[in-house]
């Protein structure tokens, strides 16, 4: 689907080593490039810990100060991206200590209920002619495809994103809005590929349902 820029490597020619070496001698262009590419994901992760955009931005700022101050200590045992996000999460936890928000990424079992992707009533039951097949099938969106570009749809999607459980919102945001790869997201969040997929699946399923409701209502 989307092409995914790596979070930390400055481009196809730059490895973590090259990026870190450049930062150590104060190379501003490398820093600006890295800052810009990392910003959406860093802001997104920080935002899950705190109640406001402004505080999330402060957390990102503080993280970069800590990174640049301590850059000599980076040993390359993890990727640069992992290290940056480790510092970010520590900053976020510190700042959010008073806010009582917990983000149990380390927990083994998903904490959300096991919602089906589609309302089971949309499918035929065991005593119907074709159990498990559509009873109320989805209608094609081709004609209203242009509607999906509209401002209203974007606002609906943004609103629906805020209503997702935290972990689903984070994974969908990092993958589908910010364009990171599955591997990067697993690395950043410390979740297994399977967990990441489950969260992505549940989040996307809910959002598809939101868009379906919108398109169906618009067609009436």
């Amino acid at each position, binding site marked *: *689907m989307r092409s995914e820029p790596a979070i930390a490597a400055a481009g196809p020619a730059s490895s973590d080593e090259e990026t870190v070496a450049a930062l150590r001698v104060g190379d501003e262009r490398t820093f600006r490039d890295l800052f810009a590419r990392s910003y959406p994901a860093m*802001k997104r992760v920080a935002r899950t810990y705190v109640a406001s955009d402004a505080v999330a931005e402060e957390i990102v700022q503080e993280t*970069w100060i800590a990174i640049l101050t301590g850059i000599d200590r980076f040993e390359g045992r993890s990727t640069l991206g992992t290290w940056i996000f480790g510092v970010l999460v520590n900053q976020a936890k510190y700042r959010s200590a008073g806010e009582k928000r917990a983000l149990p990424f380390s927990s083994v079992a998903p904490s959300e209920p096991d919602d089906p992707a589609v309302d089971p009533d949309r499918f035929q039951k065991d005593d119907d002619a074709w159990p*498990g*097949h559509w009873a109320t099938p989805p209608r094609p969106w081709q004609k209203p495809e242009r509607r999906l570009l509209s401002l209203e749809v974007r606002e609906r999607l943004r609103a629906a994103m805020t209503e997702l459980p935290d972990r689903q919102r984070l994974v969908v945001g990092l993958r589908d809005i910010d364009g990171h790869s599955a591997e990067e997201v697993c690395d950043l969040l410390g979740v297994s*590929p399977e967990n990441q997929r489950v969260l*992505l*699946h549940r989040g996307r*399923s809910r959002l598809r349902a939101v868009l379906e409701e919108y398109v169906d209502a618009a067609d009436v």
Partner: protein
Amino acid sequence: MGPPRTAHSDSELSVTADEITCQQFVELVTEYFEGALEPHTLTRAEEHLVMCDWCVTYAEQMQSTVASLGRLGAGRSPEPPESALAVLRERSPDGA
């Protein structure tokens, strides 16, 4: 053949099913697009799509949803804060 089972996990599905239902397909669609289905299950999913226009529609809706999310992308990142630039500049050999 027996009634379709409401399997949810991919591994369950790959052991028991000769064909999958629409209700099963909608649970597999993300793994399908991620390329994460076991070969047996992938075959079943593709066979299902050949026969079921509605599930093709559903899969296309999922793709449209993802594409719409992509368009929400953040746009331009802000400038780095002066506080961070200051730390960076202290490292530069000529102090600039």
